[in-house]
């Protein structure tokens, strides 16, 4: 196979030599692909800005000896512009890309569900209709479910007794009942677990009616759960800009109407 073609999301770019870059993509059919884009840093490059992070592109590759070479690129969705125009969205989108890159360890192994999740999350961010921090938390929960680390929310992580349970323990794997509760568990409050469940199943109406302190607690639990499983922390997660209080005016739920294909359906369907 000397030439092959696929659609993918640009998740990382690294400088190579004088004017080249190594582009890391998560593609629909071939999973993670690292390929060289020659001359892409020159102002007159035929690739232009298509191979920038957050780009959803249709790419033709030439199979190389060590790394494949990108020969043609066409934009499918230009998520970059609207994301970069808002710093919070930019930091959130960066965390999404880094998570996807880390969860997709093996090159060439198909990760269709993760690919669709990333596209759904970037589309939601580029649309700007949902709170960026909620989009990130929903993505992280579902990405963890993809990796096999889905936190237990409605039943006890140890004995599987039905909840709601008051305690949450990252090491145990999520919510824990009073009998199984290990030392060092936190008591996040019922509203936090309701928000986690809403984000997991895609119930945006419920998620967007949550208060900001509840969102902050939920984000903390999700980040702790993710970093526990990843073992090495994400560089971008501490830099994610989170709003500290609700903005005055119309409640967010009233501003959103259009559903997003990948992030709206129940997680179990994917």
């Amino acid at each position: 196979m000397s030439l092959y073609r696929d659609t993918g999301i640009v998740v990382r770019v690294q400088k190579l030599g004088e004017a080249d870059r190594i582009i890391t993509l998560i593609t629909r059919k071939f999973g993670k692909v690292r390929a060289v884009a020659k001359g892409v840093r020159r102002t007159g490059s035929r690739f232009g800005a298509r191979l920038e992070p957050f780009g959803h592109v249709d790419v033709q590759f030439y199979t190389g000896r060590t790394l494949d070479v990108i020969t043609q690129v066409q934009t499918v969705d230009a998520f970059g512009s609207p994301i970069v125009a808002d710093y919070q969205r930019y930091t959130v989108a960066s965390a999404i890309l880094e998570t996807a890159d880390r969860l997709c360890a093996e090159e060439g192994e198909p990760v269709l569900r993760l690919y669709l999740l990333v596209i759904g999350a970037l589309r939601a961010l580029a649309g700007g209709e949902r709170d960026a921090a909620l989009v990130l938390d929903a993505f992280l929960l579902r990405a963890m479910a993809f990796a096999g680390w889905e936190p237990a929310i409605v039943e006890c992580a140890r004995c599987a007794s039905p909840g709601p349970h008051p305690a949450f323990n990252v090491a145990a794997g999520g919510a824990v009942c009073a009998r199984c509760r290990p030392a060092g568990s936190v008591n996040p409050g019922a509203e936090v677990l309701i928000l986690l469940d809403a984000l997991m199943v895609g119930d945006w109406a419920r998620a967007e009616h949550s208060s900001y302190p509840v969102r902050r607690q939920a984000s903390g639990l999700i980040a702790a759960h993710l970093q526990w499983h990843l073992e090495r922390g994400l560089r971008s997660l501490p830099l994610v800009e989170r709003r500290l209080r609700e903005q005055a005016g119309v409640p967010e739920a009233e501003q959103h109407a259009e559903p997003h294909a990948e992030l709206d359906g129940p997680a179990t369907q994917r």
Partner: protein
Amino acid sequence: MYEGVVQDLIDELGRFPGVGPKSAQRIAFHLLNSDPADINRLREVLGKVAEGVTFCEVCGTVAEQQRCRICRDERRDATLVCVVEEPKDVLAVERTGEFKGRYHVLGGALDPLSGIGPDQLRMRELLARIGTDEITEVILATDPNTEGEATATYLVRMLRDFPGLTVTRLASGLPMGGDLEFADELTLGRALSGRRAL
């Protein structure tokens, strides 16, 4: 593997960006065959770089003194500051001969994927300059890529509330000598939104 100091030299040269083992070997043997006076000159320059290069206390570019040549020059327009990512960008703008103001070097661009946030860049120093100097216009000349655009977005948000300060961004669009059909969507979109009346 060569013996002793020759191999050490090849190893050290091989650590430079863009220099692979073959290039390192070629440079090493070029140096071995060079006039001793040339090698002494190179050694002196490297010694000066190790001891003498500092960063300008005002703009952050490389300088030999506390203040760089541009910040010391009274003829430069002190009301105009061009914000760039790296010292090499100062040279790029200087080569145009169009800009007569001063500079501010951030030391990079906001890149969460590499763990670079606002605290890792010289943004606080820029705010301090705007608060004390007579600056009336800040030109954002960060790179026209994702990280550079995000840095410009962040700076606009920080600077827009300064009274009497104009914040501008370098224009971007189609390169001269190219074909429209090969322009990417982002660049073409920028060129359209930044069009001007003739």
